[in-house]
Every structure is written in structure tokens, then in C-alpha cells.
């Protein structure tokens, strides 16, 4: 067991964890942060994407012990004071989700995309999100949502 201290969505936790415990399992099963789902076991799908110290990571590819001392934001910590993040709003307004399983990861990846490139072209959006798979939308409206959030000026 290893002792870790992690801040998740603004709350700091200290826990003893098995060294092999994945961050995503720590979030889901120890902290009850089930807003972050798991879609694969090879880090291809991106459903489990969260922000770690301001950059997006696939939380299935990070050990909980590697997150020791980190500041994590999940989809559940993205809205501020009850106000949806502009990307959450844009996904809703552009019908960029159907079953919604990829959505938390897709939004968290898009947050990072717009942080590093606030005004991406359509091609840059498509390439920026290629580590996140969606089976429902054909990506058309996801691209539209990210574009529209960029146009309204997202900073995060």
C-alpha cells in the first residue's frame, strides 16, 4: 500500500492505495466519482479523460500513485457555481451527444484542446480529438460544438 494525497474537483483526499490501482478506479470506486466512465483497456477510447494539473490525461493509463500531489478535475467538477462550462453548454446546444458515454472524456479532451489552441480549424478539432472515440454521433456535432464553444471564447 502507498499513501497518496490527491485533490479532486476541489476536495483533497488522502488514501492508502495498492500500487497497481488505476487512477480511474480510484476515482470511481474509492471516491465515487462515477461521472468518469471506462470504455476500453488499451487507452484508445478516451472515455476516462480527466484534467491532471491542467492537462488532459486518460485516467485508465495513470496509476493512482502517479497522481500523488496532483490536482484533478473530472467532468463533475467542470461546472462552476451551478453554471455549465461553455463546452458543456455547446455539447447540449449542438446535440453533440447521444448515449453520452464518451461525453465526459470528449468534453475534458476538448477543454484541453481549446486551452492549447483557442481557435482551432475544423481539421485541428478533428485531429485534436482523435484520441477520443464516439460510436453514436459520427463526430459531426461534436466538431460543431467545439467550434461554437471556441467562437464564444472559452478559457479554462
Amino acid at each position: 500500500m502507498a499513501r497518496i494525497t490527491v485533490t479532486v474537483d476541489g476536495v483533497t483526499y488522502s488514501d492508502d492505495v495498492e500500487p497497481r490501482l488505476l487512477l480511474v478506479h480510484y476515482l470511481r470506486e474509492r471516491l465515487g466519482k462515477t461521472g468518469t466512465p471506462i470504455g476500453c483497456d488499451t487507452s484508445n477510447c478516451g472515455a476516462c479523460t480527466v484534467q491532471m494539473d491542467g492537462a488532459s490525461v486518460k485516467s485508465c493509463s495513470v496509476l493512482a500513485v502517479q497522481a500523488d500531489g496532483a490536482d484533478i478535475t473530472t467532468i463533475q467538477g467542470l461546472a462552476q457555481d451551478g453554471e455549465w462550462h461553455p463546452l458543456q453548454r455547446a455539447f447540449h446546444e449542438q446535440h453533440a451527444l447521444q448515449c453520452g458515454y464518451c461525453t465526459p472524456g470528449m468534453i475534458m479532451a476538448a477543454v484541453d484542446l481549446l486551452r492549447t489552441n483557442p481557435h482551432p480549424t475544423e481539421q485541428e478539432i478533428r485531429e485534436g480529438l482523435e484520441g477520443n472515440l464516439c460510436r453514436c454521433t459520427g463526430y459531426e456535432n461534436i466538431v460543431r460544438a467545439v467550434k461554437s464553444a471556441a467562437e464564444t471564447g472559452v478559457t479554462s
Partner: protein
Amino acid sequence: MTAETAAPAAEFGRSRLRKEDARLITGQTNWTDNITLPGLVHMAFVRSPFAHARITSVDVSAARAMPGVIAAFSGVDFPEQGSLPCAWPVTPDIVMPPHPPMATEEVRYVGEAVAVVVARDRYAAADAVEAVQVEYEPLPPVLDMRTALDESSPKVHPQGNKCFEWVFGNGDIDAAFRDAPVVLERNYRQQRLIPSAMEPRAVVAAWVADEVTLWSATQIPHVLRFALAAFFAIPEQNIRVIAPDVGGGFGSKLQVTAEEVLAVLVAKRVGRPVKWTESRSEGNLTVHHGRDQWQRIRVAADHDGRLRGLSVDLLANMGAYLMLVTPGVPLLGAFMFNSIYKMDAYSFRCTGIFTTEVPTDAYRGAGRPEATFGIERTMDELASELGMDPMELRRRNWIKHEEFPFTTIAGLTYDSGNYEAATARAVELFGYHDLRAEQERRRASGDPVQLGIGISTFTEMCGLAPSRVLGSLSYGAGGWESASVRMLPTGKVEVVTGSSAHGQGHETAWSQIVAEKLGVPFEDIRVLHGDTQVSPKGMDTYGSRSLTVGGVALNGACDKVIAKAKVIASGMLEAPPEEIEFAHGVFSARGGSGKTSTIQEIALATFAAHNLPDGVEPSLDSEATYDPDNFSFPHGTHLCATEVDTETGEVSIRSYVAVDDVGRAVNPLIVEGQVHGGLAQGIAQALFEEAVYDDDGNLLTTTLADYLIPSAADLPSYITDRTETPATTNPLGVKGVGEAGTIASTPAVVNAILDAVRHLGVRDIPMPCTPERVWRAVQAARESGGAR
């Protein structure tokens, strides 16, 4: 109340943003894997590493002794496990081998469960799986349908490898082919696909005394409850099945799975609630696969392109066992190969074959994509043979708008359609004639990157299904759907639907139907689904049936509410019921006192029940069950332009136009989203996806690194539009849209690729049309002398 209520904006046809989104975009979703219960333990399965083998021993003792392990079982520990059901025995002499949830004697595909361990957490369960010792005696695999029926082939089951042969036809097929000026034969491969819903399967089972609750990431909670009762001897009244938020299905969760049954049995045995959640690689090995056919298609035509006859001979891979609707899937295509075209005769034969591979079953479109691919590819080949524009060939043969309703050679009556209008719109949006001119120029200049245009003028049968038709096809259940409407005392509305949504947007669309019918605000309606205790009756969601069957049931339930409310209104408005009118949520007496009453006021008055007319039941709540008379027939014209690099084999989609006619659209935003997603899956079959087995029967595509679901970077932007020819067979005029994009797009893309390189002598490229396959086809054509 005055009568001067402004008519609210029509809800039908309004692009409402979805009610479902709020929980989905904020992470408040209730996926099955999120569920925790006191004492919950985790299951993990030991699975066969052999495609075919005799099990000689299973020893779970070491696993059982590990810390944190509660129990470990092999198949023989569950004599009550029975056999997983197949609901569709398509012929009287079909071979239906037993299919135990856990194998006891023989395994017949890699991934088949042979033992299960139960532990305190998923990590301990995974460790314990490694400690189970299973001895096998390998047997030869059966992997090629084309040789599986040879005398010398190893047998998957003692009864042999032939599951069934199903034949169907109409008209004099021999006469159609005899002396036909043009006869063409083509052989196409429908590769094996993995449906790949983003949410892996997950199950939680919990017993309290003799009652069991099963949470499952399923499309079919109602069918699952029935199956548990009918095939596993659990009293139906003691079973509750809940499909919480479900992360996509595409047919893959239209199943009664080994893991669901075993979760119920194991939970009872260990006396604690159990959970099982598959990993993606476990899922690729065990979730039923889709498609997997060899198609031999012969067409006879006159010189002017008029179709005389079509003959279809299929080999359909069942995999190792028959699951819920495995044998029926290819037969859903039997009525669709003739598509939108008129012809004198049609014959269809399908042979179902067992192999030592994962069982196949429904995947988005189920039978209809296969048929549409077969006919649309063949139409392009025939056009090439005749030297005719492929659009012109289609035009000469399709059912004309004024000919509806039209009974096809396959015996279905298409109620409505307008192929001319959808095609005209698609041609215009696509710039068909300009692209043809550019194609000519690039051919003439010998451009290494050639342009191709692919056409798919498709139709499909949706709204599964008239129960009588299902009965005539030997299906084990009906095709009706149920809905009920509860008027709450404060004027709000609860809607219960038997159609179990998993991404389609029922909560939004159903609210729109009720808002339109009852005149209550959209926001005042709550839609309940996916729990057999809340919604006891239903046939669930698949086959683009939700709106065309479930939505129509809801329409009927609303009509009953209005009829009941009219009686109560007549008392309140002091006018006979036949003089009561209802519009936009307000009851009024025709030409009478000018008094009015809103449906909300009636709901409150009904709740109080102080002054109801004599003999009137104090309830507005209503239920309706709708069994359709006919299928619905969405159609459309899809056009794809591809650029094919003849030096590298790389294909890129330059433009894609989809004009669909799905009848009336309740919510155009949702309709468009369904088309987008369908296109992506159909394009993926054409270009990217294939489940591959090696010569020993090992699945090579067990991960998303090997099985290539396209990302945003792999797909184009789509141009979509609609024409609207209402269905005449249901009061809403709706046709269904869930599968249209998938059905139409695969042949559009492959036709476009062939159209780019046909002049080089290429006649076919097997799917997925990877750069390597395209390059090899071009090379082979060049080496054999190029264009004919």
C-alpha cells in the same frame, strides 16, 4: 379562463434540445457499472483460449483459497444453468444446439466461459482467474463457411455444421434468366464486424428472499425478464430488470447473455449481490458480432437496363451457437435485396452455418445493410456492363412516386415513397453533374488521384414489427409496443414507455408527442423507461421501432386521456360530451357558454373527484398497446465522392450527401444526429472495420488498437437533408431513422471507390477497403492488362 389561448408553437417538427443531456454532460449518469450495493462482490470469468476443445478438467480449488475470494465455480456446479435461448427457429428442421452459459464439456470459440470466480473487488477477481486450472484437449476449428459443409470438415456440433437452409421466392426466376440479354454474377463478402457500443456490458444481480433484481446494460429489459422466467425457471413476478443509463447498443445489447444469467445464478448461490463489468478486450471476444456473409448475386436484365430477375444465395455465419435472433438476422434481408426496384422474379436462399467463432446476431441494420450492399453494388456493376449511368439505371427500375402503394416482388407493400424527390435533392446538393465532368477530366489526364462517385438509393423495412408477420416467420414473440400516460394532480404528466432508450432521445421526443397531443408544456412531462417495475410492458428498442411503434402507442394513450377528460369536462362545462372540443390543452363547449377548462384543471378536478359525472371513474390515466399493420419504409439517396490515390491506395471521402426520407420528423435535430451516427458506422464498414480470426481461430482484433473504430480525424463532414413523404400506415406518419445511415452508406462508399478505379480494370475490392487492398487491386488490374 377565457377561450383566447394563443395556439402554442407546434411541437412536432421542432428541434428541441434534449432533456437527457443535463445528466450526461455533468457526469450524473447512472451506468450499470456505477451501481454499488451493501456486500457487493465482483465476478470474473475464466475463458477458453481455444477455438474448439474438449474440457478434460476444471480445478477451481486454488482460486477459491486465495485471499478475498468468496467462491469459484465451473459449469458443472450449475446444473440449473440450462441453455441460452434462441427466439427465432427459422425453419422446422433448424439445428439448435444446446448453449449452456458456462461450457461443461466442449468449448466452441475463443472466449467462451468455462469458470467464474467471485471476489471482494475486481482486482482480486482478476487475480483469482489466473489461479483456475483448466485442461483442454484441442479439437480442430471450423473457420471458413465455404468449406464448412464439406464431408471432410471438422464438426462444430455433433449434428454437423449446417444450421438451416431457408428459401424464398416469387415469380418465374428461370424464365427471367432464360434468354436474358444481360446476365451478371457477383460474389460479395460482408465482413465480420464488432458492434462496439462505447459502454462495455455490465451486470449487477441482487436477491432479496425469492425476488431478484437484475441491472444490466441492455437494450431489452422486458425481453430479458421474460427470458429469465421462461427459460431459467424464475417466477416472472419475482423478477425485476432495470436498464439504467445505457451507453449505446447498436444491436449488441439486444441479447440474453451468459453473463446476465450467470450473475443471477451466482448471486443466489453466494447470497450476496454480484457485479460483472467486461473489459473491452473481453467484450470483443464475447459480445455477439455482426454481419459475416458470403453473397452470390445473379441479375438478369434487358439491354435497356430493365431488371428481369434477381437471384440471391447467401452463406451466413451463425458462429458457434444460436443466440437470441441469430438465424433471423440474414432473413431480414430476404425482403430487401429487391430494394426499390421492380422486377419480374426474385429468388433467395440462405444457408446458416456453424463455425468456431463468436456467435453473430443483430448489428445496426441487421440483414438490411447486407441486402442493400448486395443490390446497390450489383446495380453499379450492371450499369457498367450496360455502359449506362448508374443513376439512370436506377431511375429506369425504381418504383415511381405515382405507383405507391406498391407490392414488391418480395411481397412487402411499400405504403409511400418518393425516390425521384430524394434523388433530385441529393443530386443538386452533391453537384453530381459537375463531379462527373471533373471525373472525366481526371481520367483523361491520367491523374494519379482518381475521383469516384458512389450512389446508394436505398430503402429499408422499419417499425419491427406486425406481430402476425413475425409469427409467420417463426419468431417467438410479438412486435407491439406499449405506452401509458398518467395525469398528475398538479397537471404535470408522467409517461411510461415500453421502449427502452439507450441514446436515442426518447425522453425528449416522447415529451414532444405528449406536448403536441395534450397541449401541456414540454417541461411538464417526464418520461419513464427501462425498469420492468416502472414500465411493466414492452418490447424494447431495436430495428428502428421506437417511434414507429412505441411513439404510435403513446399517441393512442394520449387519445384515451383526451376521451376520458372530455367526459369530465362535459360535467364541468355543463354541455354534453359530444359538444366538447379540445385543442391546445383547452376543453370548450361548442357554441355554448364560452366556458373553458384546461386539461390541468380537469386533472385536478379528477384527483379531487368531488363533482364527477355519475359513474365516471376518477382517473385520466390511460394505456395503449400498438401493433402495427405493416412495416414502415424509410428511403433515401446517398451520394459519395471519393478520391483514390492509385499509387498508395489511400481513399479519402471528398464529399458525402445524404438525403433521407423518414416521413414526418418529430425532432429534426435528433433525426439528423441519428443519420450522422449511422453514416459513421456504415462508412466504417466500408473503410476500416473487420473482426479477424487467425488460422487457429484466435480473434486478432480484441482491442480498439486492432479493431479500428474511426475517430473524428478519420471521417468527413456530412451534408444531410430530408424529403418528407409521410408514412400512411400510422397516424404519426413516421418511418424510423435509427439504421438508415448505416444501411445506405456502406455501398455508397464502396461504389465510389470502384467508380474511381473501374476504368483501370478493377471490378471489386473486399471490405474494408484499406489502402493495401485498394493498392493491390489496382496493381493486379494493371498487371493483368488494365481496362477491359
